[in-house]
């Protein structure tokens, strides 16, 4: 079974971000970029599915500037077979991103398209389900595990306090989250092999985003806290403060 995985290049989640002078984006200098962690789960899920079936190819697709080649190479080093870079501007408007991806993936015969449940920069959680509507494919979000059964795929979804088991007809779009698919480390052999794997580059369909970032700000500073005490004897005072001062209990 052929699988397409959409991946995004994002700042490392351990990174402290700096807002750029124009206050509408972050300053990329000194920032380490990585493949979005959720997309990494999706790549792992695709590799395991193809390996178990002993059939099919994994193609990784990214929309972004030339630096996203590095992200695609990282996925190829994990074991994906082919890469495709759609050169274009990323946007915080997930619909614009979904349209650019749909323009490329329209007509694709890959039964499964996987994405991370969200990108670890915009946190919009929307490109996957939008792509599903645009491609007229059944879509499941927040998938922690799935298995293909004939013409369907059965997914475990993370829901409030439990798991929902959902069956969808193929072809489908799934957005993957943390759970089963702990990503493998790329081996040295994998990294060497990735350099020789096909990585196609073409211009993305130009779609203008309709969400405009007017201003980025840092989160409000929290007021000075207090150490209520050292040791369990401080607990009654903590409870009093929570009740009377903070009105939180």
């Amino acid at each position: 079974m052929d699988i397409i995985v959409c991946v995004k290049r994002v700042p490392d989640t351990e990174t402290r971000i700096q807002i750029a002078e124009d206050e509408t984006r972050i300053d990329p200098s000194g920032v380490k970029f990585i493949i979005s962690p959720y997309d990494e789960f999706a790549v792992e899920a695709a590799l395991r599915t193809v390996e178990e079936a002993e059939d099919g190819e994994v193609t990784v697709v990214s929309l972004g500037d030339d630096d996203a080649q590095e992200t695609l190479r990282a996925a190829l080093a994990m074991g994906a077979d082919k890469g495709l870079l759609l050169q274009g501007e990323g946007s915080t408007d997930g619909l614009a991103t979904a349209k650019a991806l749909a323009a490329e993936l329209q007509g694709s015969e890959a039964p499964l398209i996987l994405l991370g449940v969200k990108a670890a920069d915009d946190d919009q959680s929307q490109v996957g389900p939008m792509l599903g509507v645009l491609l007229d494919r059944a879509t499941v979000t927040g998938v922690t595990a799935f298995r293909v059964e004939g013409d369907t795929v059965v997914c475990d979804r993370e829901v409030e306090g439990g798991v929902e088991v959902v069956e969808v007809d193929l072809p489908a779009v799934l957005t993957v989250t943390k759970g089963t698919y702990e990503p493998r480390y790329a081996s040295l052999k994998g990294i060497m092999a990735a350099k020789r794997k096909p990585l196609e580059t073409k211009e993305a369909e130009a779609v203008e985003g309709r969400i405009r970032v007017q201003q980025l700000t840092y989160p409000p500073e929290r007021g000075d806290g207090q150490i209520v005490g050292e040791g369990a004897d401080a607990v009654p005072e903590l409870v009093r403060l929570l009740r009377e001062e903070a009105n939180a209990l």
Partner: protein
Amino acid sequence: MADVLAFAEQRDGQLRGAARETVSAAATLAAEFGGSAHALVLGGPGVADAATELGGFGAASIQVGAHEALADYNPEAYAPVVAERIRAGDYAAVIFPASILGKDLAPRVAAHLDVPLATDVTGLEVQDGELQVIRPMYAGKAFARVTLDATPALVSIRPNVFQPMEREAAGTVEAFEPQVDAGALRLRVRERKGSSGDALDVAEATIIVSGGRGMKAPDNWHLLEDLRDAIGDGTALGASRAVVDAGWRPHAEQVGQTGKTVAPKLYVAVGISGAIQHLAGMRTSQTIVAINKDPDAPIFNVADYGIVADLFDVVPRLTDEVKKLRAEG
């Protein structure tokens, strides 16, 4: 074009807390636009009974679509119906909850309508007739003020940020017949495991008791469960990435950049040192308590109240004190 529509989420025929929040936010926004707030409720037969209370939160019209195939959430059934109701109205904005259901539904509706969507919004303002939306990015390391260049503007609002506000106006229930072809749905829910009707996602909880590596072993979580039960309704367990990665707790509980971003009334961090990606995910909580034996742990930099001590001494004592408080009423 000045009305605002709120999607009111129900489960098992009962409105969820998020429904009061979306309707209240819609009523506030509609007042600024000079229009009225409408609520949209989809569910099984009989769902109208639960929907009437939304008038008390400012919905001038409560549109109820009841159908067997809408009793439980199925995105393939819900999304086209919601899109159709939005098309049929004259809405400046549509407000969804950023719950698990809302995050699944809203993007589909946006794609059906060909309008952009802002997810997990924490602020809504009208300036010179234009909607300005505040939303976190990078899991809360930054906040963006954005505008949506389309009508209607679709947003999903973060749980616990927009408070439910009771209002006088009593809205009228208007039933409509949703068009659903139950046989054509490409998605079927087989079962729900371990999720009861009142189960709360950590992102929706009003109080979170969260544990980290300082808990030492998964077997010690009964201490946090006892504290959660003592505090009572609306309390959920959270976890740091370290303990989720170690397999001690499910990912659904993870707070931080590769988990949930939360904003409860009270966040109790137990044995959590406070990695940057964790702090980003919980720093907008109203009150933060940190219990950690390391006085230099970064979690104390965001905590309102800290206790420097061995959590295995503090947590049982805290549970007892909370029980005493609850017994006093």
